[in-house]
C-alpha cells in the first residue's frame, strides 16, 4: 500500500498542477509532493531494509535494491524540487505561467515515471516507465524553446526512443525465452529469476545484448551516450540534477535486473566464452568512455574544471554550458566504472553485491554532481540577471566544493 501511496503522490501532484492556474498553488503542490514523496519513500525504504520485500498486486514490488533507488529518487527529487521553486521564479516571470505549469507538471511526472520504474516487478511496465521518463523530460530539456535546446531535445528524444525500443526487443526475447520454457508466464522479474537457471542460454544472451544497448543508452554508456552532454547541459538546473543524479541510475538499475537473470542462466557458461565476449566489449567501451571523457578536457585545456570559478570571473569567456557538460562526461565515466565492476564480478551473487557497492560509492558522487550542477547553473542565472551579491555567490562556491568532493 505504501508503494501505491508513494507512486500516487507525484502522479496526483502532476495532475493537480496541470489543472491549477495560480502560481502559488502550483508551487505549494509541487513542494509538498516533493517532500511527501521523500517522507513516504524514506519510511518505505527503512521498512524494506529491515524486513522483506514489499509488493502490491503483481505489478509493484520493492526489494532492497529498489529501496535504495527509491531513496535516491526521492531524496534528489526533493532537493532538486525545492531548489526548482526558486529557480523557476528566476527563470520565468508571471507572463510565462503556462511554462511554469508545464515545468512543474512534467517534473512530477518525471519523478513518477522514475519511481514506477524502480518499484515495478513487471519488466514490461519497467520499460514503459523508462520510456516515460524520456517523454516526460523531453519538453523540459527544451523548456526555453531556443535553437540549442530544441536540437538537444530532438536528439535526446530520437536517440533515447530508438535505444529504448531495442531494450523492448530484449525484453520480448527474454519473455520468449521464458515462455518457450514454461509456457504462459507473467513478464515479472520474480518469476523470471525463479526459472532463470532453466532458460535457453543462447536466447538469454541475445536478449541481453539488446538490453545492454537499450538501457545502456539510457544509462549513458558509450557509444550510446551522445545525447547526454547535450541534453543535460540544455535542461534547467533542477532537471539536470535529476537526470544526472537519478535517471542514469534508473537505466543502470534496469540493466542490473536483467544482468541478474543472465548471470544465473549463464552460471555455467560464465567463465567461458560468453563471458569473455561481452566482457571484452564492456572493457572496450570502458576504454572508449575514458577517451571520450578526454573530449571536453581537450576542448579548452585548462578550462572546464575551473568552470565554476571561471563563471564567477569571466562569464563571457566560458561556453555557457561548460560545467554541466563536464559533469556529464564525468557521469558517463562513473557509469562505465560501475559496469566494469559488473564485468569483473565472478558469480551472480557477488555481482549484485559488488555492483551495489559500486553504486553506493557512486551515489554520493551522483548526488554531489547534482549539487555541482545546481550551483553551476546558479551562476549562470546569476549572470542572466540574478541580483546576488558576491558574498552570496561565495557560499555557493562552498556548496559547489561539497559537490566537487563527490564528482570523479
Amino acid at each position, binding site marked *: 500500500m505504501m508503494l501505491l501511496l508513494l507512486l500516487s503522490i507525484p502522479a496526483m501532484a502532476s495532475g493537480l498542477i496541470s489543472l491549477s492556474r495560480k502560481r502559488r498553488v502550483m508551487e505549494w503542490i509541487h513542494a509538498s509532493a516533493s517532500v511527501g514523496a521523500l517522507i513516504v519513500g524514506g519510511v518505505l525504504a527503512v521498512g524494506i531494509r529491515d524486513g522483506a520485500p514489499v509488493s502490491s498486486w503483481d505489478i509493484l514490488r520493492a526489494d532492497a535494491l529498489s529501496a535504495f533507488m527509491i531513496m535516491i529518487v526521492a531524496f534528489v527529487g526533493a532537493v532538486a524540487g525545492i531548489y526548482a521553486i526558486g529557480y523557476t521564479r528566476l527563470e520565468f516571470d508571471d507572463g510565462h505561467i503556462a511554462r511554469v505549469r508545464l515545468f512543474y507538471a512534467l517534473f512530477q511526472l518525471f519523478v513518477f515515471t522514475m519511481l514506477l520504474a524502480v518499484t515495478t516487478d513487471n519488466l514490461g511496465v519497467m520499460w514503459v516507465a523508462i520510456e516515460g521518463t524520456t517523454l516526460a523530460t523531453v519538453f523540459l530539456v527544451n523548456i526555453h524553446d531556443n535553437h540549442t535546446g530544441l536540437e538537444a531535445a*530532438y*536528439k535526446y528524444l*530520437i*536517440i533515447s526512443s*530508438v*535505444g529504448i525500443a*531495442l531494450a523492448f526487443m530484449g525484453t520480448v526475447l527474454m519473455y520468449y525465452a521464458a515462455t518457450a520454457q514454461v509456457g504462459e508466464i507473467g513478464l515479472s522479474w520474480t518469476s523470471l529469476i525463479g526459472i532463470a537457471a532453466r532458460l535457453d542460454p543462447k536466447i538469454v*544472451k*541475445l536478449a*541481453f*545484448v*539488446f538490453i*545492454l*544497448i537499450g538501457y545502456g*543508452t539510457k544509462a549513458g554508456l558509450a*557509444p*550510446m551516450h*551522445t*545525447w547526454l*552532454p547535450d541534453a543535460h547541459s540544455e535542461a534547467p538546473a533542477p532537471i539536470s540534477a535529476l537526470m544526472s543524479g537519478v535517471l542514469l541510475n534508473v537505466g543502470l538499475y534496469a540493466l542490473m535486473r536483467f544482468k541478474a537473470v543472465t548471470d544465473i542462466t549463464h552460471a555455467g557458461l560464465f567463465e567461458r566464452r*560468453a563471458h569473455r*565476449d*561481452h566482457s*571484452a*566489449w564492456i572493457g572496450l567501451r570502458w576504454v572508449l568512455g575514458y*577517451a*571520450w571523457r*578526454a*573530449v571536453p*578536457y*581537450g*576542448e579548452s*585545456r*585548462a578550462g572546464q*574544471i*575551473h568552470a565554476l*570559478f*571561471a563563471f564567477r*570571473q569571466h562569464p563571457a569567456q566560458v561556453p555557457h554550458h561548460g560545467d554541466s557538460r563536464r559533469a556529464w562526461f564525468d557521469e558517463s565515466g562513473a557509469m562505465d566504472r560501475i559496469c566494469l565492476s559488473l564485468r*569483473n564480478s565472478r558469480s551472480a551473487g557477488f555481482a549484485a*553485491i559488488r555492483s*551495489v*557497492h559500486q553504486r*553506493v*560509492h557512486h551515489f554520493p558522487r551522483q548526488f554531489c554532481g547534482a549539487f555541482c550542477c545546481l550551483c553551476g547553473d546558479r551562476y549562470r542565472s546569476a549572470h542572466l540577471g540574478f541580483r546576488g551579491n*558576491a*558574498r552570496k555567490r*561565495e*557560499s555557493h*562556491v*562552498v556548496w559547489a*566544493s561539497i559537490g*566537487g*568532493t563527490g564528482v*570523479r
Partner: protein
Amino acid sequence: MLNSAAMLTLLAASLMLFAGGAAGALVFDRESGRCRRMTHGLALCGTVLVLILGIAGLTGNSFELLLPRILPLAGGLALGLDRLSAFFLLTIAVGVIPSTLFAVGYTRQYRQEQALLGFALNVFVPAMMLVVLSRNVLTFLVFWEAMSLASYFLVMTEKDRDETRSAGWLYMVMTHAGLACLLIGFLAMLQATGSFSMPEWARAAEGVDSGVRSLVFLVMAAGFLSKAGAIPFHVWLPRAHPAAPSHVSAMMSGVMIKLGVYGLIRIGFEWLGPGPGWWGVLIMIVGAVSALLGVLYALIDSDLKCLLAYSSVENIGVILLGVGAGLVFRSYNLGSLAALALMAALYHSLNHTVFKGLLFLSAGSVVHVTGTRITEEMGGLLKRMPHTGAFFLIGSLAISAMPPFNGFISEWLTFQSLLLSFRVPEQFINLVFALCIASLALTAGLAAACFVRAFGITFLALPRGQAVEQAHEADWTMRTSMGLLALACLTLGVAPVLALRVLSGAVNEFLGAAPDLSFDWSNIAAASAFGTIAPLWVAVILALLMLAAWVGLRVYGANFSRRYYETWGCGRAVQTADFEYTAAAFANPFKRVFAFLYRPVEETEIEAHSESRFFVKTITYRHESRSIIEDSIYAPIVATVRRLAAKARTVQSGNVHGYLLYILAALLTLLLFAK
C-alpha cells in the same frame, strides 16, 4: 593510559570541532573577521585534540572502530589507531597547529575567500587525520579524496590569477592520475584477497601470487609517490605550492605529502606482505633522484616559494631513501636495520614538517609584506623583519642539516642506516647504496648552497626594490607560530631522544623488530658503536665555545671598538643595490656544472651608445632553464593526449545520424560477437 572509549571520545570531539568550523564558515560567510577567527580557532582546537590523540597513541593506546552502518556494503567505516598512525597524527598536528595559528593573522588579506578557506581547512585537516586512521579500502579512498579535493580548493584561494588556475588544474590532473593508480591497486588486492580490510590483506598477502603483489606495489607506489611529490611525479608540486596561500603551502608541503609516504610505508611493509628486494631498490632510486633533482631545481629557482616546493621534493627524496633502505633490509631479514632506516625516514618526515612549515610560513610573511615572491626583488629584509628573518635562518639551517638543528639528526640517522648497508650480502645492492650515499651527500651540500642563497639574497645586504624598503614585521600570531616551529627545530635537534623514544616504539610495533639504535639524553649510538653522536653536548659545547671565544677576546684585551664604513666596491663612489650579487649569479656555477640537466637558454642583449660601442646603455640578460622531466616525459604525454582528444572530439560531431549510427554499429557488432 586512556582506554579505547576515551580515545574515541577524543576523536569524536575533534571531528565535532572541525564540523563546527566548517559549519561556521558557511554560516558566517558574510562576516569576514568573525568567520576567520572562528573557523581557524575551531580548527586549531580540533588539531590540538588530534595532537593529544597522537601522543596518546604513541604511548601505547590504540583503538579499533567499525561502523558497519556507514558505507555498509564495503565493510563499513573502519578506523583504527596504532603507533604508526599515531606518529603521523602527531606529524599532522605539528604541521597544522602553527599553520592555522599563522593563518589567523595571515588570511586577513583574503576578505572574499574566508568562507571557502575556512570550510576547506576544516575538511582538509580531519580528512588527513582520517586517512591515517582508515583501516579499509573505501574508508581510505573516501578520506583520501576529501583530502585531495579540500586541498585543491585551498590552492585555488587566489583563483583570480591565471597562474593559480593552471596550477590547480595540474594538481587536479596529477591527483586524478594518482587516485586512478591507487584504485587499480586496491581493486586488484580486493580481487586477490577478497577482503576490503587492509589489515586482513597483510595476513592474506602470503597467499597471493608474488607477481601480482609486485604489480600492485608498482601501481600503488606510483599513486602514493605522486601525492608525495617524488620525481617524476613531482610536477604539480612546484606549481601548486607557490600558488597556494602560505599557510596552505606549509600544510601541503609539511603534512599532506607525508601521507604519500605513509601510504608507501603501509603498502611496502604491511599491506602487501613481504616483498622482494627490488621494491626497496626502486624506492631508493626514486628517492635518490628526487633528492638530487629536487635540490638542483631548488637551487636555481628565483621564486622563493617555488624554491621551497622543490626543496620539498628533495626532502621527500631523503625520506624515500630511508624507506627504500628499510624495504631492502627487511627483504634480507635485517630487521633491526630495517627498523633503523624506517626510523630515520620517519624522523626526517617529522623534521621536514617542522622546518618546511617554518620556512613556508616565514616566506609567507615576506611575500605578504613585499607583495612579491621573486628573490631578486628582495634583499635587506633582516633589518626590517628581524624576527621573521631569524626564523627563516633557523629553518634554513635546519633544512640544510646543520647541527645542532633537527635536520641534522635525521640526516645523520639516514646516513648511518645507508652506511650500514654493507651487511647486505649482495654486491649489486651494496653499489646501489654507495651511489645513494653519494647522492644524499651531494644533496646535503647543494641544499646548504641553496639555502645560503635563499636566505642571503632575501634577507641580507641591501633592498633591491621599493616594496621591500617599506616592509614591516609580521603580526604576533604569525610570529608566534613561527617561533613555535623554530623552537621545535632546535628541540628536536638538541634533544632528539624525545622523538626517538616514541619512534622506536612505533617502529618496533610496526615491524616487530627493535631498531639497532641505543639512545639517551647524552648519546645516540647506531648499531652499537658504528656511529655515535651526542647532540645535546654538541649544542652546549658549541654555544659555550662561541661564548668562550668572545670572553677570551675580552680577557686578552682585543680591540673592541668598531667603525662603520661603506662596503668596498672596487673604488666606486656609491655602493647601491645594483652592485649586489644576484640570485641568478649565485646559482651560475651550479648552472654551469649541471648544464646537461638544466639545459639553460641564455640571451644577452647589449645596447650601446651610438658614439662608441664601449659605452653601454643597457644590458638585458635573460636566462631560462628547462625541466628535463617535463620535457622528456610529460610534454610527449600531454601532446599525445591533446592530439587524441582533438581526434575524439570528432566523435561528438553534432550529427544525430552519426549518433544513431554508433548505436546501430554497436548493436550489430555485439550481435555478431555474442553469437
